[in-house]
C-alpha cells in the first residue's frame, strides 16, 4: 500500500533558498555547540594541568574563561538547538518527523545528557571557586562527558540521514545509528571541537592582564598540545568521503561545483589552522597574539560553514537516503502521484491566487510549491527562471519529466503530465514578467508526449543515486 501524503503548509523564504536558511543557522549552532564540547574537555585538561602543578596559571584561565563558555553553551547552544529543530520543521516537516519517529529514544537519551551538562556547567560556574580540586576535576569531567555524549547521540542521527545502511531493510535503529559514516564523522567533529575550543582559549589568554608573557606562552603551548587532533582531520575527512555513497562522493569531487568549492574551502581552512597549530605553536613554541588567534578562529568558522553546506548538500536527492526525497515524497509514492496528482488533495490554497492569469498557472504554482520549492526559488537563489530560461518549451517539458536524469541530485518528478505542463507554463509566465494575459496550453498530444518522457525516465531516482548495497556505505 502507498503511504498517504501528509500535506503541510509551505512557507516562502523570499529570495533565499531553504537550504541556505538551515545551513546558515546550522553553521552558527554547530560552531557554538562544538566550541562548548571542546571547551569542556579543555577545561578538564587545564584543571588537571593546574592540579599536577605543571601549569598553575591554567586555573586562572579556567575561572575567567569558563564564564563565557558556560554562558555560550547554555544559551546559544541550547537555544539554537531548539532553533535548529524549529527550522527543520519549517524546511521539511516530513524529514524531521521521520527522524523523531525513528530515533525518539536516542533523542530522549540525549536529553538526559543535556540535563547533566546544564547542571554540571552551572554548578561549576556558580560554585567552582569553593570546591576542592578533586571535585572540580570530577565536575569538569562530568561536564565534558555529557557534552561529548550529546555530540555522540546527535551524530548518529545526522549520519544516518546520509548512510542509513541496514536500517532501510531491517528497521533496526542501532544498525541505522552506528552507520558507515558514524565513526569518521564523530571523530572529525570531536577533533574540530577541540581545535575551536583551543583557538577560543588562545584569544582569551590574550585578554588576561594578570599573567606574564612567559605564562601566556606556556598556556598557549599547552593549548596547542590539546589541538593536536587537527593532524588527524585530513585522514578522518578521507575516511568520511570513502564511507559515503558513491554518488554523493561524486558531487563533492567535482560533480557539483558549488559543493566542490565548499569542500575545498573547508579543507583549505583546516590545513591552514592545522599547520599553524602544529608547526608554529607546538613544534616551534611560538606565541600567538589575539589578532592571529581571532583570524584563525574566523578560518575555523569558515571551515565549519563549508563542512555544514557539504553535509546538507551531499544527501541529495534525498533528505533520508533511500527513504525520503528532498521534497518530502517517498520513493514508493512517485508512481502513485503520477496517477493522482501532487496537488489534488492539497488542502492549502495559494496565498496569491489572484495574481495568476489563469487556472493552469495556479496549478503550476502549487506544483512548484510542493515539488520544487524546498531547493529552488522562482527567480532568486537557484531560481527556476534562470535555470530553465535558455531551454525551449519542449526541452523544459522533457527535462522536468526526466528530472532525475537532467541532474542526478534531483528526485523524479511526482505529478501528472497536466501538472508538469502547468509547472512549465508557470515558469515561462514568471520568466515573461507575469503578463496579465496568458493562454492555457496543453493539447492531448503534448500530454501524451510528456507521459512518454515520464515513462522513459521511470520512477526510480538517477541510476547512481539508487540503493546500491556496495556504495551505501557498505554497512552490511
Amino acid at each position, binding site marked *: 500500500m502507498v503511504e498517504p501524503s501528509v500535506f*503541510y*503548509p509551505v512557507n516562502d523564504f523570499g529570495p533565499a533558498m531553504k537550504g541556505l536558511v538551515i545551513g546558515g543557522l546550522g553553521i552558527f549552532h554547530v560552531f557554538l555547540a562544538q566550541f562548548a564540547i571542546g571547551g569542556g574537555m579543555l577545561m578538564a585538561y587545564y584543571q588537571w594541568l593546574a592540579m599536577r602543578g605543571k601549569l598553575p596559571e591554567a586555573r586562572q584561565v579556567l575561572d575567567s574563561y569558563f564564564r563565557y563558555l558556560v554562558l555560550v553553551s547554555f544559551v546559544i547552544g541550547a537555544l539554537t538547538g531548539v532553533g535548529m529543530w524549529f527550522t527543520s520543521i519549517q524546511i521539511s516537516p516530513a524529514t524531521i518527523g521521520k527522524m*523523531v519517529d525513528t530515533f*525518539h*529514544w536516542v533523542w530522549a*537519551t540525549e536529553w538526559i545528557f543535556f540535563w547533566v551538562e*546544564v547542571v554540571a556547567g552551572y554548578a561549576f560556574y556558580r560554585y567552582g571557586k569553593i570546591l576542592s580540586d578533586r571535585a572540580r576535576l570530577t565536575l569538569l569531567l562530568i561536564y565534558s562527558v555529557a557534552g561529548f555524549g550529546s555530540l555522540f547521540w546527535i551524530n548518529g542521527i545526522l549520519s544516518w540521514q546520509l548512510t542509513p545502511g541496514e536500517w532501510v531493510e531491517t528497521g533496526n535503529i542501532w544498525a541505522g545509528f552506528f552507520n558507515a559514516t558514524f565513526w569518521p564523522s564523530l571523530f572529525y567533529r570531536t577533533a574540530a571541537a577541540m581545535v575551536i575550543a583551543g583557538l577560543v582559549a588562545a584569544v582569551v589568554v590574550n585578554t588576561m592582564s594578570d599573567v606574564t608573557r612567559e605564562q601566556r606562552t606556556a598556556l598557549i603551548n599547552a593549548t596547542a598540545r590539546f589541538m593536536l587532533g587537527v593532524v588527524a582531520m585530513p585522514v578522518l575527512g578521507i575516511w568520511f568521503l570513502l564511507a559515503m555513497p558513491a554518488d554523493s562522493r561524486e558531487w563533492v569531487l567535482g560533480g557539483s561545483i558549488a559543493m566542490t568549492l565548499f569542500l575545498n574551502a573547508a579543507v583549505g581552512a583546516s590545513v591552514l589552522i592545522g599547520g599553524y597549530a602544529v608547526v608554529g605553536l607546538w613544534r616551534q613554541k611560538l606565541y600567538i597574539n589575539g589578532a592571529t588567534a581571532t583570524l584563525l578562529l574566523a578560518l575555523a568558522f569558515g571551515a565549519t560553514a563549508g563542512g555544514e553546506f557539504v553535509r546538507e548538500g551531499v544527501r541529495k536527492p534525498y533528505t533520508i537516503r533511500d527513504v525520503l526525497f528532498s521534497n518530502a515524497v517517498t520513493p514508493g509514492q512517485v508512481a502513485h502521484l503520477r496517477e493522482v496528482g501532487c496537488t489534488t488533495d492539497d488542502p492549502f490554497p495559494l496565498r496569491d491566487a489572484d495574481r495568476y492569469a489563469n487556472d493552469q498557472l495556479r496549478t503550476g504554482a502549487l506544483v512548484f510549491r510542493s515539488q520544487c520549492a524546498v531547493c529552488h526559488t522562482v527567480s532568486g537563489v537557484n531560481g527556476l527562471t534562470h535555470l530553465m530560461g535558455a531551454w525551449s518549451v519542449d526541452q523544459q517539458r522533457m527535462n522536468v519529466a526526466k528530472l532525475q536524469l537532467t541532474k542526478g541530485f534531483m528526485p523524479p518528478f511526482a505529478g501528472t503530465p497536466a501538472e508538469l505542463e502547468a509547472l512549465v507554463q508557470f515558469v515561462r509566465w514568471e520568466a515573461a514578467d507575469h503578463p496579465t494575459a496568458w493562454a492555457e496550453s496543453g493539447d492531448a498530444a503534448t500530454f501524451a508526449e510528456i507521459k512518454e518522457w515520464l515513462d522513459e525516465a521511470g520512477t526510480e531516482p538517477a541510476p547512481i543515486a539508487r540503493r546500491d548495497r556496495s556504495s551505501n556505505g557498505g554497512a552490511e
Partner: protein
Amino acid sequence: MTVFPFELPLPTMWYVVLLLVTMLLHVAFMAYVLAGSMMLGIAGFRGMLGRVPRDSAWQAVTRVLKDWMPFALSAAITAGIAPLLFVQILYQQEFYTANLLSFHRWMAIVPVLIVAFYLLYLLKAHRIEGRLALQGAVAMVVMACVLFVGWSWIENHLLSLDRDAWPEQYRTGAMVYASPAIAPRLGFWIVSGFATASALLAWQLSLAASGVAAEVAARAIRMLAIVGVVATPAAGLIALPALGFWSADEGLRSGTAHLMVAAGAGAVVAAAGFALVLRRSSAPRAGLVVASAGLTLMWLGLLAAREFLRLESIGLESLSARHERVGTLSGLIVFLVFAVIGLASIAWIVRTVHRAQHGLGDPK
C-alpha cells in the same frame, strides 16, 4: 483499568504518560520563570516610580529570583525538550502545521528567549545596581519576553487543534492566530504559575540556599504562603473555563470528571499545605511538603485532562494507527540506563556542592 490515560491503546497511552511526566517537569520550571519574571517586572516598575519596598522580605524574594532566574530559564528550556519530542510523536501533523502557519512569529521565540536570558544576567550584574530606571526597564523587557513565549505556546496549542481554520490562516498569511481563548488561557497559566512558584521559592528560602537571614526568610515564606493560599484554588477554578472544560460537551465533561476531581483535590490539599506554612513559617517544611504534593496532584489532573480534550478533539482513530507504527521500544533500555547514570551524576553534583557550602569536604 479503564481510567484515562490507561484506557488508551498501549502505544498511545505510553507516549501520553511520557508527555505528562516530562511536561510536569517543564511546568515546574516554566511556572517559576513565568511568575518570577512577573514579580521582577512589577518590582522593577515600582522601582522606576521610586517606590522601593521597605519590606526586606519582598526584597529577599526578588534577590533570590534575580539570582536563580537565569538557571531557571535554562532549566525550563531544557525541560521543554522532552515534551517537545513526545508532542511530535503524538500529534505530529497538528503540531507541525501550527508551527508552519505561524512561521516567523513562532520562530521568534528563539531570539526572544536569548534576549531574555542575557537580560536576566544583566539584571544580576553589579554594574546596574542602584540604577532603578535601568533595572526596571530590563526587568520589564524580560517579563514581556517571557509572556510573549507563553502566549506563543498557547496560540500554537489552540491553532494546532483548529483544523478548520488552517487553510484560511495559510491563505491570508496571517502569522497571528487571534482566538478569544488565548487570553483566559494565559490568565490560567499565570495564576497557576504564581501558585507553583510560591512553593518553589518558599523551598529555596527554607533550604537557606539563598543566603537570606532566617528571620527575613520566615517573613518572606509567609508572604509566599499567602500568595499560594489564594492562587492555588484560583488556578483550579480558572482552569475550568480557561482550558476549555466548561465549553466541552457533556461526554467530554464526564470523561474528564475524575481528572478534574483529582485536580480539585490537589488544589485543596495544596491550599491546606500553604495554610500550614502560614501557621508555622519558621518551620515551614511540613507545610511545603503537603503543598508540593497537592500541587503535583493538581498539575497531573489538569495536564491529563488537557490531553484527554486534545485526543478527543483530534480523534483518537486518526492518531492511534500512527502511534502504533512509530511506537518502538528499541532504545528504551539505553534511555533508562543513561537516565539512571544521569540522575546519579546530578545527585553527586548537588551533594558535592552542598557539602562544600557547609564546609563538609568532598563526598566519598
